[in-house]
């Protein structure tokens, strides 16, 4: 078994209104040091394989095809186990 952790974030340069709203809330609570907030997605995938190289290839494909929209989002992932 391998575990893949996938992080999807909106590309730098593309406005993240959720992040801006949360930043505003933090500022109004007194956390003035927050210069920016970006909100993304966190996904955990359990893979029934032990072949790391193959898993890596497949997870990348999943990210490119479905998990991230590469027009507006970046992704990265970690494999463990």
């Amino acid at each position, binding site marked *: 078994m391998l575990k893949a952790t996938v992080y999807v974030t909106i590309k730098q340069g593309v406005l993240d209104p959720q992040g801006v709203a949360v930043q505003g809330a933090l500022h109004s609570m007194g956390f003035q040091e927050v210069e920016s907030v970006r909100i993304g997605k966190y996904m955990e995938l359990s893979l029934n394989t032990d072949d790391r190289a193959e898993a890596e290839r497949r997870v990348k494909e999943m990210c490119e095809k*479905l998990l991230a929209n590469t*027009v507006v989002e970046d992704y990265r992932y970690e494999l463990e186990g």
Partner: protein
Amino acid sequence: MKFAVLVFPGSNCDIDCYKAVQDTVGEPVDYVWHTATDLSAYDCILVPGGFSYGDYLRCGAISRFAPVMNEVAKAAEEGKYILGICNGFQILTEAGLLPGALLRNTSMKFRCHDTVLHVVNNQTPFTNDFELNEEIVIPIAHGEGNYYCDEETLKDLQQNNQIVFTYKDNPNGSLADIAGISNKRGNVVGMMPHPERAVSDLLGSADGKRMFTSILKAWRDTHGTASVR
């Protein structure tokens, strides 16, 4: 001419689209389930608004892989007319049939009200019944209608006359006020506003009616059929 209205789990403007076709052009129209694998009987495919597959992950991300979407891609290739409205527009961008992506409205609000659009391109099969630069009233209802693409794509859209509608007062932060675009060939159009909700004065505007009459007119022009109602 025959219309298909695609139905995904979560579509909620399918009935409006179906009735809009009946009420404006009176041509045959069918609901087609997302698992369908044959669209060869249809001349125009309407991808309606709603929240297909719950909009999980991203709007349109999962529906883009529904079996029927392979057929939509084929139909686009064959030059058939495809109109994606709201969630349908999001699905068409996710499917790569139209460029760009739709992000959350910059206001963070779900906006649901009439908007004034400029008809920027009246040479498409969907807009030939409008005047160039005409102002029309079509309602919007979306939380993620903020059109985005990179600079190069925007330049392409402008050069190829692919921007079909722009907003007079941008309600969602869309790049270059874009409300609707077409593919290069012009047979695939996606738009966030809902023409199917503007087909009668009783609904507040009848301007959307002419999108459907445009489609029939374009089809008759290319097929030379006088299927007079």
